[in-house]
């Protein structure tokens, strides 16, 4: 079997050393087009956990308008969502629920860990804590981390752009100037 494995494309290798099934039809161009389509229509799940959820809502609202990038279709059902924005603290009580929701999403799917709580437990990590999962990446694979407590909507938008870059391999939108570069 080892010989056969070497014939497979390295990009089909998963983290655990297994190979994904090869696609039935594999045309490079079609794949690229699909990638662009996926990156431009990331439908998030309506899934707010805590404070960050309000900033996630604010991102979808008039001033910041997530819709410009085709990501405003918040789907309440995980079956129709592409993107899970873990916006808030994950507790031990809810951990099985998060894993289940992630499993219910159809592939290809992505996860953004929004806010310090989802990244590492954030301010709720202290000696003797008994109820917070210290980082949602202990439960499900995370693609993009957006730090902040809570992150500003601009931060979440930047996280979305980073995810688009990750999917297509290209940064699509102009990069904002660093602080100090502005005239």
């Amino acid at each position, binding site marked *: 079997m080892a010989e056969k494995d070497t014939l497979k494309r390295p990009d089909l290798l998963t983290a655990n050393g297994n190979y994904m099934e090869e696609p039935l039809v594999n045309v490079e161009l079609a794949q690229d087009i699909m990638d662009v389509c996926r990156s431009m229509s990331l439908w998030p799940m309506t899934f707010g956990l805590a404070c960050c959820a309000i900033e996630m809502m604010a991102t979808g609202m*008039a001033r910041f308008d997530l*819709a410009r*990038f*085709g990501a405003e279709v918040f789907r*309440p059902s995980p079956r*129709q969502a*592409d993107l899970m924005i873990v916006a808030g603290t994950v507790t031990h009580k809810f951990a099985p629920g998060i894993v289940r929701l992630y499993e219910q999403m159809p592939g290809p799917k992505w996860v953004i860990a929004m806010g310090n709580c989802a990244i590492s437990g954030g301010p709720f990590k202290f000696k003797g804590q008994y109820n917070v999962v210290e980082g949602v990446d202990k439960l499900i694979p995370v693609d993009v981390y957006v730090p902040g407590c809570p992150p500003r909507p601009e931060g979440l938008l930047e996280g979305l752009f980073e995810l688009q870059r990750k999917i297509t391999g290209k940064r699509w939108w102009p990069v904002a100037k660093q602080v100090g570069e502005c005239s």
Partner: protein
Amino acid sequence: MTTFINIQLLYLIIALVAIMAWVGLNALVLVYCERKFAGHIQRRPGPFEVGPHGALQPLIDGLKLMGKQLLTPDGADKVLFWLAPILSFVPVLLLFVPIPYGPVLTGMEMNLGILLILAFAGFNSLALLLAGWASNNKWGLLGAARAVAQAVAYEIPMLLAVLGVAFITGTLNLTEITTMQGAWPWQWNIVLQPLGFIVFLVSAFGETNRAPFDLPEGESELTAGFHTEYSSMGFGLFFMAEYAYMVVVCSVCTVLYLGGFKGPFIDGWWWFLAKTYALLFLMIWVRWTYPRVRFDQLLNINWKWLLPLATFNLLATAFFIKL
């Protein structure tokens, strides 16, 4: 004789293909319009970056949906589960056949055109029931129950309103109904049947599950209602069917009450399209403005208001025709 049949058949096939393209195109345009229109109602630009002014957004969404994984839930009835979206979408194609888009642009002339539309539109409620039942999901089941109760209820006043028009025109052929109306607005059926028009329009909202009557999929109550468990194109088909039904209902409304392809100066498909899209925009506008009604209120509106009004309209029409 044989050549005659063949030409008929060929014509029908061309019409069906054209209708398919038309339905697909309509869905794309409508989704774009809806999102853009909603955006502007809500003080934001809506889809903007994908294509010029976000024009490619629906196309890209569609492609993405096709590329998603197809999931069948564990406890679902597999055959019925996948039959439902197909059953919801395919009959829609048939509904476009008798609609006269222009003086010669009709899929197939038939004497019972409106009857065909009303009959096959009933398939939709069956599809929604199957979808909710087969997906083995409690929210889906509740959504399906709502969908059927709603569709059954709202079909009756709609039928009665249509009958009113049929009484004045004396035909069920949609082309004939159009040609009986004049070019100018005061020569349209809406002048003769204002009550019927209102009843028809309200029933249309109910029939197509649009807000404020979008109870079968009421997001804040039933998560996603009957299509909670559908991923990928299963959901996509329901989505397209919903928009296709909107187009059908608005087209029929145009034919029955607004003079169809007839209009001032030159008759033609452009008048038809303009009127249909005006109605569609009304539907979109209402959706983004009003809250959702409650389920018992929805049925009360129907049984206590629309049905008596439609009956009264019918009786009055009959009375005046007899005079």
